[in-house]
């Protein structure tokens, strides 16, 4: 019997592959929250951007930061977060797929208003660790306007 694979649609927004999700994390007091992530195969890891950390009001000040990372021309502190529940829309059934996702939070090291603004323009990203951990494959045929994750 041939097992059919399921697809999750990606959108191309501002020239980037974007995955629409709803996230939830009870230990961080994040209630169901609509979020968009850029799927970035150039990044080994997944990050919640400084913008989304502020928007979600994640209290990361007191949390221990890992090594610093450079991303999009800015330097950030990287903070480990508890696992986050992520809901994705299955293309065939229109029902949500639930994943438990490892992700770090980014906090800019900059202090000047202009540099903070630049750091906050960067999106949250899902890197190769997300595809590996969730056993997802990425399919992109831009000439056919086709982009999706398969599991």
């Amino acid at each position: 019997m041939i097992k059919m694979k399921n697809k999750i649609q990606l959108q191309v927004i501002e020239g980037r592959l974007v995955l629409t999700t709803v996230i939830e994390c009870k230990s961080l007091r994040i209630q169901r929250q609509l979020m968009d992530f850029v799927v970035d195969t150039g990044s080994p890891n997944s990050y919640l951007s400084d913008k989304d950390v502020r928007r979600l009001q994640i209290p990361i000040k007191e949390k221990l930061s890992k090594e610093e990372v450079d991303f999009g021309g800015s330097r950030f502190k990287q903070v480990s977060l508890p696992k986050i529940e992520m809901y994705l829309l299955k293309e065939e059934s229109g029902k949500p797929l639930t994943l438990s996702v490892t992700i770090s939070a980014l906090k800019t090291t900059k202090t000047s208003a202009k540099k903070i603004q630049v750091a906050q323009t960067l999106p949250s990203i899902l890197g190769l660790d997300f595809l590996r951990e969730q056993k997802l494959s990425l399919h992109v045929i831009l000439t056919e306007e086709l982009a999706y994750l398969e599991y």
Partner: protein
Amino acid sequence: MDQISQMLVNGQRDLSWFEENINDLRMKYNNEFIAFHSKKILEHDSNLNNLIEKLTKKNINLSDVFIKFVSKVKAIL
């Protein structure tokens, strides 16, 4: 359709609307953060904290709102 699926469908629609209108949005809100929902701009500000404060003061539920920075200058990751 359950609540989560509805949020996801609406979110995809809002992002499509954003993409379709990106050039107009860049002209109108250059170098600002914009908050949008249901294909409408709810608020805008060049400062993210100010924008979140404006939304909170209006009692806008942030759970299904997108916040994006728009600029005539293209950003590369």
